[in-house]
């Protein structure tokens, strides 16, 4: 009997013109949104590869460790073609160096990018908004219409248990509505699968299956809600009005409303305040460098003996690169730079910690929002889909954390190479290559300035300076959360969707066994 009831409901749904319209609309939206997102993904993927090559080339040009800056690139998430999430908003690359910590570089200054409940038009948004509404339009009258038309009397004149009728209608209704979902998804998936730029792994497919399962749970929440109201309300029209109001509240109003409340009850200072603190630390470092300079006065400084020296200011012994200088100046610069760069590492660590703590605060705010957003099945589904597909905004935090971890490995690498304790920090030449100023003066006075120039050129000829051997430099690869970790993170959301279903189904059952079927 369950099958008979389910089959009737299934056929009753799919034989209607509204179903055909809805199915076609969903199919068109799934395909068109995925096609647009695939195009964007392919472009970003191409850009990623170009950037990686460009950054590798830039890095290989470094001839001193002070100038070694590594640009870290995060590839676009392949599953963002189904669940755009925050993937496009998250930084695709960040520069790190021993003296430059990675900081969050995207997101509006006053906004928490982790607080997001809608994305651009993608499969998830279509399910979140259009399919949930469609489901309501097919469930608001499941029982009330049969009561209004009188078929319910005829049905229950048979030895049919009420729970069988209810279960059959829910099962048949859901199966009919899963049909456009699965067809739409299958079309979108094929579109992606056949595109050369999209490489989906087995795990990616498993993640997609989980998203579809969550979508089914999410849609069945709205279906059960519709059935519940169709039992509670005598008239289908009343049921529809109530359900539309609830839908607007749960899907459109509640998520941004909760985020607004969270901003009020757990405010986080703006990023500009952190920027100011970071700036203060940089100034403190600068001050300490001036103090160092006071204790280590600059040797006699003759501009004509100096060549290709990259410094913040010539008054400070802090250089990024030294081409040529008299030995006294070279030693002053090398020693000062060793002190300054190591000191800078300490300050950059503190600056990173500032931003990291700020990000943690943003994350805590987002966690509170997530907990409250569990009142909205729509937001729960969105969060689940984004986290499982790796397109949630917390990817930005992980990217920054991994970038900082890489920076620490880079510092260790430079230290192991002696790059933070020797002349190699700022020059490719040994200290003895630089003549004392007295020798240079003597040569100039006896043999003329042209001879001095040739001495300098002999020591420093850019063509002869070999770039650093970076063949064994640590490589960066952005690590996505494993499927197990993603599941662990999203398990509460999945449980919420399951519990909501159980709650609503129980509500349907309790109200229906007590309802008047006449």
């Amino acid at each position, binding site marked *: 009997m369950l099958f008979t009831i389910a089959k009737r409901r299934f056929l*009753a749904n799919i034989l209607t013109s509204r179903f055909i319209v809805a199915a076609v609309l969903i199919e068109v939206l799934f395909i068109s949104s995925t096609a647009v997102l695939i195009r964007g993904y392919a472009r970003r993927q191409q850009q990623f590869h170009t950037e990686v090559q460009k950054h590798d080339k830039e890095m290989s040009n470094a001839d001193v460790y002070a100038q070694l800056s590594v640009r870290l690139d995060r590839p676009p998430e392949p599953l963002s073609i189904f669940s755009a999430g925050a993937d496009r908003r998250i930084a695709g690359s960040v520069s790190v160096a021993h003296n430059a910590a990675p900081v969050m570089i995207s997101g509006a200054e006053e906004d928490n990018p982790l607080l997001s409940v809608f994305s651009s038009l993608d499969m998830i948004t279509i399910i979140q908004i259009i399919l949930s509404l469609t489901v309501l339009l097919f469930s608001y009258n499941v029982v009330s219409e049969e009561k209004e038309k009188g078929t319910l009397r005829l049905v229950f*004149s048979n030895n049919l248990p009420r729970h069988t009728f209810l279960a059959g209608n829910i099962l048949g209704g859901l199966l009919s509505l899963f049909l456009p979902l699965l067809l739409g998804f299958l079309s979108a998936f094929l579109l992606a699968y056949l595109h050369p730029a999209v490489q989906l792994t087995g795990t990616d497919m498993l993640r997609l299956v989980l998203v579809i399962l969550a979508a089914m749970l999410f849609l069945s929440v709205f279906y059960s809600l519709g059935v519940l109201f169709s039992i509670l309300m005598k008239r289908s029209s009343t049921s529809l009005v109530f359900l539309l109001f609830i839908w607007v509240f749960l899907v459109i109003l509640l998520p941004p409303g909760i985020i607004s409340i969270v901003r009020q009850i757990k405010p986080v200072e703006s990023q500009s305040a952190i920027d100011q603190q970071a700036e203060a630390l940089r100034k403190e470092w600068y001050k300490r460098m001036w103090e160092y300079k006071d204790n280590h006065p600059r040797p006699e400084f003759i501009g004509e003996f100096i060549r290709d020296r990259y410094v913040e200011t010539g008054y400070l012994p802090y250089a990024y690169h030294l081409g040529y200088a008299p030995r006294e100046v070279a030693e002053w610069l090398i020693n000062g730079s060793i002190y300054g760069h190591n000191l800078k590492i300490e300050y950059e660590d503190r600056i990173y910690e500032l931003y990291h703590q700020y990000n943690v605060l943003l994350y805590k705010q987002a966690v509170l929002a997530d907990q409250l957003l569990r009142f909205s099945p729509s937001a729960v589904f969105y969060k689940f889909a984004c986290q499982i597909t790796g397109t949630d905004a917390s990817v930005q935090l992980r990217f920054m954390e991994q970038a900082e971890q890489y920076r620490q490995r880079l510092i260790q690498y430079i230290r192991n190479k002696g790059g933070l304790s020797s002349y190699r920090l700022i020059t490719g030449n040994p200290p003895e290559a630089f003549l004392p100023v007295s020798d240079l003066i003597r040569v100039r006075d006896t043999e003329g300035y042209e001879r001095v120039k040739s001495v300098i050129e002999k020591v420093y000829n850019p063509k002869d300076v070999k770039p650093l051997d970076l063949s064994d430099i640590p490589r960066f690869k952005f690590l996505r959360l494993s499927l197990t970790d993603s599941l662990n993170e999203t398990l509460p959301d999945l449980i919420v969707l399951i519990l909501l279903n159980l709650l609503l189904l129980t509500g349907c059952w309790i109200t229906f066994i007590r309802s008047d079927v006449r």
Partner: protein
Amino acid sequence: MLKAIDLTKRYEDGILALDHVNFEVKAGEIFCMLGANGAGKTTTINLFLNFIEPTDGKALINGIDSTKEPLKAKKYVAYVSENVMLYSNFTARQNLDFFAKLGGKTDLTKEDYYQVMRQVGLQEKAFEAKLKTFSKGMRQKLGISIAIIKDAPAILLDEPTSGLDPKASAEFQKILLDLKEKGKSIFMSTHDIFRAKTVADRVGIMKEGRLVMMRTREEFLEENLEKLYLDYMQEKTA
């Protein structure tokens, strides 16, 4: 087969819809219940189908108390309402198939359905036509088909000829008599005294929830049923 023992129903608002009603419909018998609107005819049917529970008394189908064992009792009864409402997007055969399966008939063929529809006088072209194109008469016939195909020993008919044209009513009458011949216990609530007179083996008149009169066919033919009915109705207004 159908038996009401002191069947009483008082609604939550205090209205006494049925007051200790007793009757029995035997196999191969048609019992027509006459009465004005609100007299308690439909309430009686609702009690037999366990749509509502009695305040007192019992409604037995095939000896089974429909309150205590509603699902078991409903195996033995078919029901035709005043306005047979079926699924308009389905064809007559699909509707018949659906309700036959609910009635426990799961092994019927398309031909079986066609045969029953022929039996009630539905035209062949209507078999695979959608219900939304059906007239009331056609829907009533299909309702009867549903009752026939269930092949239950008892049938409850709630004003089945209401709104039918004379031809359709006559056809309906013939079907009822066929069912009676097959030994079905038929309980029919109706306003239609003429139809009751033609088909009933016994007639009861309900008034304000009480079964105020019961006559056998021989008795009501002798006494003039129209006059009896009017007399009882006038008593009400007097």
